């Protein structure tokens, strides 16, 4: 993964979902794992420091608006609002690129529309990586029927690039199926039930990461087996026809959380992205190593409803040479 290199623009992941969906738990897990094998400097923007569960020994400095952790991560309060907080982080990153965050995660309030918050990721120095929306597996059905919040949760799910269903241990398999099909009726995004502990960073940041460098398939097969996410690579025959490429990307099965790569097009190199259901192809102005050019990396949710039937078929359907 390229998640431990300092990028030019800090990728922004927006974490949405109603109260009780598990946003804070996920953030606590991420921060405590950030210093493990591949240290990643994560900046987390939260509404309330009090809910973040930080071991005092883990904190290297603290002010009213920023907590710095010994693993290089920072936790920033959103009391001054998104624009001012992001601007401060950008100014800090310019002044000291060596300690700049490599990933930025914004925790939105339970009623915020993550699609609207994601627009702040277009501020100078940042780039939108993905929108992850968490859903409370136990409550979602009731919440969607609620007079006050049903429409808000529908809108939240509708803008997701990835939906994470939590509390699945509290419900029966058939209830989980009902919940999953409800989500699928509202969102084209891939769905993962019960966020995995072992590859949480990959789940949260890998979805949006770019450019491709050392993909997770470089890990040993033992590690692969524990992942809830499968990584596949396809080598395209180049140069590719952009229209055909676009059609192929749009036809990806719902289990596909991320497609990325740089390929040779008719006139220029093309950056290929599919983040959740969003497809984007742009001219890639930079160089890319020969071994990577033409290789498309795909992350998919292993236990996704209907995943196995279509993924391999889709992979075999890659676009023809121009």
């Amino acid at each position, binding site marked *: 993964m390229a998640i431990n290199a300092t990028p030019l623009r800090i990728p922004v992941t927006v974490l949405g979902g*109603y*109260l009780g969906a598990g946003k804070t738990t996920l953030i606590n897990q991420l921060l405590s794992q950030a210093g493990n094998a591949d240290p990643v400097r994560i900046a987390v923007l939260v*509404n*309330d*420091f*009090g809910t973040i569960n930080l071991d005092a020994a883990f904190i290297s400095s603290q002010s009213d608006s920023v907590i710095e952790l010994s693993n290089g991560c920072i936790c920033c*309060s959103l*009391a*001054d*609002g*998104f*624009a*001012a907080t*992001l*601007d401060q982080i950008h100014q800090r990153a310019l002044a000291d690129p060596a300690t700049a965050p490599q990933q930025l995660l914004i925790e939105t*309030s*339970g*009623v915020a*529309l993550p699609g*609207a*918050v994601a*627009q*702040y990721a*277009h*501020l*100078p120095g940042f780039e*939108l990586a993905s929108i992850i929306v968490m859903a409370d597996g136990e409550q979602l059905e009731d919440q969607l029927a609620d007079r*006050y*919040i049903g*429409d*808000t949760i529908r*809108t939240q799910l509708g803008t997701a690039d990835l939906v994470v269903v939590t509390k699945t241990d509290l419900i029966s398999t058939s209830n989980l199926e009902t919940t999953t099909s409800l989500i699928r009726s509202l969102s084209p995004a891939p769905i993962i039930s019960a966020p995995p502990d072992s590859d949480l960073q990959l789940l949260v940041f890998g979805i949006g990461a770019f450019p491709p460098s050392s993909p997770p398939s470089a890990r040993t097969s033992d590690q692969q087996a524990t992942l809830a996410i499968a990584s596949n690579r396809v080598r395209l025959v180049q140069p590719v026809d952009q229209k055909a490429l676009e059609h192929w990307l749009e036809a990806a099965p719902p289990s596909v959380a991320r497609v990325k790569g740089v390929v040779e097009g008719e006139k220029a190199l093309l950056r290929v992205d599919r983040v959740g259901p969003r497809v984007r192809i742009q001219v890639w102005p930079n160089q890319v190593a020969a071994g990577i050019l033409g290789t498309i990396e795909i992350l998919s949710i292993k236990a996704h409803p209907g995943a196995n039937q279509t993924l391999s078929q889709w992979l075999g359907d890659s676009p023809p040479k121009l």
Partner: protein
Amino acid sequence: MDSTTIYPARLVRTLWQSNPEATAVAVRSGRVLGVGTLESLQQWGPATVDERFADKVLIPGFVEAHAHTMAGAVWNFPYVGFFDRTDPDGKTWPGCKSLEEVVSRLIEANERMDARLVADGSEGGPEDVLFAWGLDPIYFNEERLSRKHLDLVSVDRPIFVFHASAHLATVNTKMLDMQDIGADHPAEGVPKDPTGFPTGELQEPAAMALAMPGFAILLRAFSDPVSAQKFAASCRNAGVTTVADLGTIQEQDWPIWEKLTNEPDFPARIVLAYRGYRGNDSEAAAKVVAKAKGNTDLLRFGIVKLVLDGSIQGYTARLNWPHYLPDPQDQRATNGLWLIPPDALTDCLAAFHDAGLLVHCHTNGDEALDVFLDAVQEVQLRNPRPDHRHTAQHAQLTTPAQFQRMANLGVNANLFTNHIWYWGDQHRTLTVGEDRAAGMNACRSALDAGVALSFHSDAPITPIGPLHTMWCAVNRITSSGHVLGPDERITPTEALQAATLGAAYQLRMDDEIGSIQPGKRADFTVLEEDPLAVEPMALRDIKVWGTVLSGVVHRAGTSPNPVD
């Protein structure tokens, strides 16, 4: 013993039921010593008789229970709104009735900035932004303001025009270029023209923040002491003696207000409401309680502001069925936005309620109001607090059943009557339709249900001016001349009560201000005419001579920090 001053007046309207009218008021130690006649007040012993109000009408100082101090900051910048507006120095800026007039106003402002740079021998820089405010494109039938209009003003200096709605800004090509906002910019809220280049309009704060040199001016505006002075001067000019900033001044800026309100001749009493639901509410409540122990005459803490939904004209207020009128473009969501999760409101409210604080909750739509009333009922069941005085702010679409429930729960209504004039026509035709618009800001229904009533300007959303706000409640006329819901009109007497004692009650200060009565603060609004004697349509035209604040006389239109 402190000296006594007696002010004879043409009329003193006390709003004290037992002595409603008088011709003189005696003041000692900043408080009302007595009301009556010059003769009857002699029983307090020797006094100086000050004749300066002999031909004026004295009423209790107006209380504005919902404004924002940034109403002062905006006057550091040129105004380009549609309606005439008066600045803190008393100068009236005519409304810009066309885009051409907007451009001319900006060209003048640009020339003033050039002249100032020459005078300072400065080159300017990226911070040298021409910022203007108040634009209301809803009133222009022609094309919208775009970068092309602003390029006529300057191609060298970045320009940022902030719209009255607070949801939009328009910038010039220089600003777009400086900030690298080009044809391929990915953000939503950056509309493109037919050539594919941004039009210059930036929609919603995330897009406005892309023009950071302009947006930063907005962010900084809150903590500027000069702006604070201007805000207080605007209050005085409008006859307001006590004003609540509902939740825009953050803790780090409290010292500015502590210093200013201690200066002699500061012309307004400021209530700084704390904005809740920003982290740990129980800790925040303890902080506000502690802060309120140090309250001075002119600076008060102890009110908490919560914001539950958005605005009706922005289609972000939470409305009960049948929600908003259909969108011709079919792009809008059916309902608005929550700013606090409905499930979280009860605990949030409880944190402040349990600490003994008074909570003012922004509930523009009737669905938001239902959630607030549910929360009040729940915290009252858990921890009954007699006389809590929690208040629904705006509450513009409140139904008769909701007013009844508010009366039963002891919840007050601070309605937004200025909307009738400024957006009444839009509400009839675009947001909720003729029938529900007629029931917006329903003062008559509120009073009939027994709800304690006040109304507000929400300055700078609309100009601070209780006489105008009263005029709206009494006449209910839209800017096109339509009478909106005539059955919801109230009498001038009821309106005067709402603008003084009614607002004081909602700030839990009615024992101290809001009427002219022995023992209360000597707070008067000095008027040229009697608001209960003029034609109701002439209410807003009454001239404000000035105010008396805790016995200190403040003349309208004199600024301690003149605008250049």
